[in-house]
């Protein structure tokens, strides 16, 4: 343990974040966040002037006018292009690679293979099972083997065809059952045994007893097919290794810090001679939250050629890079009392992980850990197994690990309500876990606006007049959920802050915020700017945000698990308040007033007792403060308190604050074809406080849209192929065949913001980026039941599947029975 590296066996979770002996523990006062008068949620200058207002995003204008610079917009002098050679086999041993003919092609500058950088890496330090380019085995169709740098992309493509790879095909497994049935066909040698990537079993309370004592028990078997992120911008990077031995990589990543570490490790460079810069990113959704082959390959090729190298993935390659939602088979038993109290839940979950671990260790925990609110679960057990298969690796997609179980569970609840003859919104209210409480698995819940969410969707959707009261073919359904606002630990164990900001004020009247945080469109750079404006009375145009550049910005862990607004927002709030205090003290001294009287707003600094007499511009105030204190700068950081249950894995799923969501979906189904049209989704989301309601609504609508697309259209399947060829080929890795809804397909989305004002969030804010996706899918499934009397337990609910259900069961009779329960019209 002396080198500070984790020494647990692969697949072992960070057990209570064990701290190796030689690590310096942070001082207690460093871990205690500063206490501000009035609290974190209060406006610093009387009223909110920026926070809570409908403001523009700082980068919005550049994006809509085409001036934003994405990775692929970068062109450096003498830059080469590179492409990756990918496996056409789902599973094969690499016998030999001969690149001589490719190298001989005019215009080709270099070819690298796995042997040039064999070091294993992986986003989770306990499961480092990937290589930049495969050395001895390929594990899915599309696994990368070699990279070619040439004058242009077409020459690269021609060269790739000249690289001769001799394969020895191996038996491949492409589904959970086969993976488990054939441990000898091992996909990933880093697996503990056979094809098991990770197994977790946790039990809280007496589940069997609770189920036995229940008035109603429902058993369900659900299938979540999995989906991919499909961000508009494909992965792209440019790498430049200069003559001093310094590597710069511009990449469309959402985790610059982790990329920084892994580049140094795999390329064997000191971290302080590697710089990672994230240009404007065109969407990530979790699909860019770990290093990929392209960054290592571009960097290595730059080191070999001495020239900058760009790699831009094709759309098809984005599907192979994947890390999307895991296919999951979910078997649930859920009990309820006659009056609607949930008694116990028993969950058996299997996850299809694809060929590599990715975030899979965490996903496996999340598939169980994140179900324990907003309803009180008195007894809960989950048994989750992730398996390796010969397909692109699954990982985190918006709502990491918990969207699938949430789908299953909310459908279970709907079935129980039907059995008990109770209104599904009423039952959800009855089981509300409350605020300032603890879940059955030991997660601390602070603020909780779930009841307001239920009220909002019930009211706005006209629920009472619609549920069980519309003609055959039309229906309405409800679902609820919760999600994390960041997790309480870093992916690799350390005691340093999770988020940080350096703030600098200039005598010109300008503020510069520097942070390693990652804006992938969700708007965290804007959040930082709003906070600084609010605290210091500045105009939005007078704040510059410098983000995600490892040379210029302090470390932030990146855009995942909905952590940015909460964590870096808090860091920024502290940094800004430190400076605000300095300025206030300076002015108070000069004017002979109390510091508490100083207001910085709308570009003016004044004393509230006599603003006619004591008022200067904020710019002058900066100058006075600079004269008094010297150069103005401050830092702020965030580190979450110790959270979670006292058991192995008990920290996974622990978050400083949880967001809550409720959806009502209204559908119109065509019983003759099986087509389901979602007409409306009402999304109510408790985001703590909406720092900018426009961006919060954007996240809510975008989330509901994404869930709706997964529910009805997106198909993530793998094809059989010609004999002698690889099966496990994605059915159609393009935006034509992977059908995401168009604007014409998209329902009316009604975003209803609920603000519970969290005690620990910046101004009370929690997350809004992932939570609002969760109830989409079960709300639609439940609405289809209300419309047609069939239960859609397998995704996607495409017309052929709905038709099969309509034909198989007694849909009409079920429908009649369900509506008879509710009684006549109200």
């Amino acid at each position, binding site marked *: 343990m002396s080198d500070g590296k984790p020494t647990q066996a692969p697949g072992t979770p960070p057990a209570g974040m064990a701290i190796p002996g030689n690590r310096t523990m942070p001082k207690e006062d460093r871990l205690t966040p500063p206490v501000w008068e009035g609290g974190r949620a209060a406006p610093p200058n009387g009223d909110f002037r920026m926070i809570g207002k409908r403001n523009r995003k700082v980068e919005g204008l550049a994006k809509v006018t085409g001036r934003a610079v994405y990775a692929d917009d970068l062109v450096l002098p003498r830059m080469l292009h590179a492409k990756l050679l*990918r496996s*056409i*086999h789902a599973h094969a041993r690499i016998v030999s690679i001969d690149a001589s003919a490719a190298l001989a092609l005019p215009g080709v500058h270099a070819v690298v293979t796995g042997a040039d950088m064999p070091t294993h890496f992986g986003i989770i330090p306990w499961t480092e099972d990937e290589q930049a380019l495969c050395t001895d085995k390929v594990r899915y*169709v599309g696994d990368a083997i070699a990279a070619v740098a040439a004058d242009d*992309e*077409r020459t690269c*493509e021609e060269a790739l065809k000249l690289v001769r790879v001799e394969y020895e095909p191996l038996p491949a497994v492409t589904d959970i059952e086969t993976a488990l049935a054939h441990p000898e066909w091992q996909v990933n040698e880093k697996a503990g045994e056979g094809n098991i990537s990770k197994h977790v079993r946790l039990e809280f309370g007496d589940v069997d007893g609770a189920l036995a004592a229940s008035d109603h028990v429902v058993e369900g078997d659900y299938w979540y097919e999995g989906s991919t992120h499909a961000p508009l911008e494909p992965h792209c990077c440019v790498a430049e290794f200069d003559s001093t031995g310094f590597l710069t990589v511009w990449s469309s990543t959402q985790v610059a810090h982790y990329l920084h570490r892994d580049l140094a490790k795999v390329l064997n460079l000191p971290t302080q001679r590697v710089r990672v810069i994230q240009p404007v990113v065109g969407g990530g959704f979790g699909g860019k939250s770990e290093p990929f082959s392209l960054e290592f390959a571009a960097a290595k090729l730059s080191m070999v050629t001495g020239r900058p190298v760009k790699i*831009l993935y*094709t*759309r*098809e390659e984005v599907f192979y890079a994947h890390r999307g939602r895991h296919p999951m088979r979910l078997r649930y038993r859920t009990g309820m009392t006659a009056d609607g109290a949930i008694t116990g839940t028993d969950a058996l979950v299997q996850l299809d992980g694809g060929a590599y671990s990715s975030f899979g260790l965490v996903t496996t925990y999340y598939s169980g850990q994140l179900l324990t609110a907003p309803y009180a679960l008195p007894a809960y057990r989950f048994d989750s197994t992730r398996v390796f298969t010969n397909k692109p690796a699954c990982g985190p997609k918006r709502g990491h690990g918990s969207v699938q179980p949430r789908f299953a569970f909310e459908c279970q609840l709907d079935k129980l309500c039907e059995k008990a003859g109770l209104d599904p919104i009423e039952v959800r209210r009855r089981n509300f876990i409350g605020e300032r409480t603890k879940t059955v698995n030991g997660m601390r819940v602070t603020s909780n606006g779930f009841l307001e969410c239920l009220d909002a969707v019930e009211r706005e959707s006209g629920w009472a007049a619609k549920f069980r009261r519309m003609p055959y073919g039309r229906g309405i359904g409800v679902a609820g959920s919760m999600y994390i606002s960041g997790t309480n630990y870093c992916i690799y164990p350390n005691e340093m802050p999770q988020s940080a900001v350096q703030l600098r004020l200039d005598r010109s009247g300008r503020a510069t915020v520097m942070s390693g945080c990652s804006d992938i469109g969700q708007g965290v750079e804007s959040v930082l700017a709003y906070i600084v404006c609010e605290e210091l009375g500045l105009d939005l145009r007078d704040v510059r945000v410098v983000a995600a550049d490892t040379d210029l910005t302090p470390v932030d862990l990146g855009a995942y698990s909905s952590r940015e607004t909460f964590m870096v927002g808090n860091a920024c709030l502290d940094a800004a308040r430190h400076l605000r205090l300095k300025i206030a003290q300076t002015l108070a001294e000069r004017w002979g007033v109390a510091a508490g009287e100083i207001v910085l707003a709308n570009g003016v600094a004044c004393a509230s007792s006599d603003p006619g007499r004591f008022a200067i511009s904020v710019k002058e105030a900066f100058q006075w403060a600079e004269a008094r204190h010297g150069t103005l700068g401050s830092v702020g950081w965030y580190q979450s308190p110790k959270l979670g249950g006292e058991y192995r894995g008990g920290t996974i799923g622990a978050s400083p604050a949880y967001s809550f969501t409720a959806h009502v979906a209204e559908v119109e189904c065509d019983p*003759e*074809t*099986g087509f389901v049209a979602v007409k409306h989704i009402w999304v109510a989301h408790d985001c703590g406080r909406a720092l900018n309601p426009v961006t919060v609504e954007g996240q809510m609508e975008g989330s509901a849209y994404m869930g709706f697309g997964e529910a009805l*259209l997106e*198909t993530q399947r793998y*094809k059989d*192929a*010609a004999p*002698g*060829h*690889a099966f496990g*080929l*994605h*059915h*159609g*890795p*393009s935006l*034509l*065949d992977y*059908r995401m*809804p*168009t*604007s*014409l*397909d998209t329902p009316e989305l009604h975003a209803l913001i609920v603000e519970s004002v969290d005690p620990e969030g910046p101004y009370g804010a929690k997350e809004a980026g992932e939570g609002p996706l969760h109830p989409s899918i079960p709300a639609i499934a439940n609405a289809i039941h209300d419309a047609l009397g069939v239960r859609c337990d397998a995704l996607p609910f*495409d*017309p*052929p599947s709905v*038709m*099969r259900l309509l034909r198989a069961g007694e849909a009409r009779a079920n429908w009649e029975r369900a509506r008879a329960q509710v009684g006549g019209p109200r």
Partner: protein
Amino acid sequence: MLTLPAFAWSRPQSVEDALAVLAAHPGECLIVAGGTDAVPNLKHRLHEPRRLVHLGGIGELRGIRAGDAGLEVGALVTLTELASHPHVREHFPGVVTAAAHVASPQIRNMGTVGGNLCLDTRCTYYNQTFFWREALGFCLKKDGTRCHVVPQGKRCVAAHSSDVAPVWIALGAEVEIASRDADGAVSRRSIPVEAFFVGDGVHNNVLAPGELVTRVLVPGAAYGLRTSYRKLRPRAAIDFPMLSVAVAVRGDAARIEELRVVVSALGAKPRTLGGLDAIVAGRAHDAALAEAVGAVAHKQCHPLSNVPYDTDWRHDMVPVFVKRALADALGVPA
């Protein structure tokens, strides 16, 4: 990004010039009009021509003309122009619906009537990248020897996927083809659109190399036909048809004189339903008649796995869509 292969480029200014360029480079050319089908196919290396011949400069191929003899639609007329033309909108709503159901507004602004007619057949095993096709195993339409849809078959059955062609057929429209003989003499001939297509998915029309589509001609007799178009697709835009039905009826709901139903996105050519006269001629539209027409369609049309989504379900949808299209044409509820 997927790259385009290297090619030479011609932009002739007249039909004669175009035919001359094609004749000068036999077997090496690909005609491009709007490019909305050709360009993706080039990127997928489905076509590997040495030269592209872009028709965009040929003024003669533009424009829609309506006269007593019928309607003339130039090959370069865009789908947007076709769908928004007042005369077409008034008389041929089925054409408008079909054209407006193609892809998306941007693609319809580029895509032409000629290109739509000559649209390459489509197959889920074919419209993929070179890498993907290599991983799967090439098929006999391009680079390979066997068919993944009908493994025992000797013929490609890739799906005819043009939205507008079935309506042209239902209307009895003709297509004008320009060709050039060995002496350089240019001639034009017109054939029924129905006869333009052949049942070979590799090349599903009668165009010989070096020939050009110049116009579509809707005969005067087509005026007075009630037309409609229904398209099965998962999304309300972008998607190619998974089943398409064009209907042309003479008469009205009280008395049907004549009914033509064309179904496509099955195999390589659209299918015109046979034996309808006996069922419909002189009769009023009612549930039993619709049912009977649907049953004929179900019997005669057999979707294949060349197109995504369950084939049995698509087969079940044939009568549903035929009945709905018929009702649309007659202006009665389905």
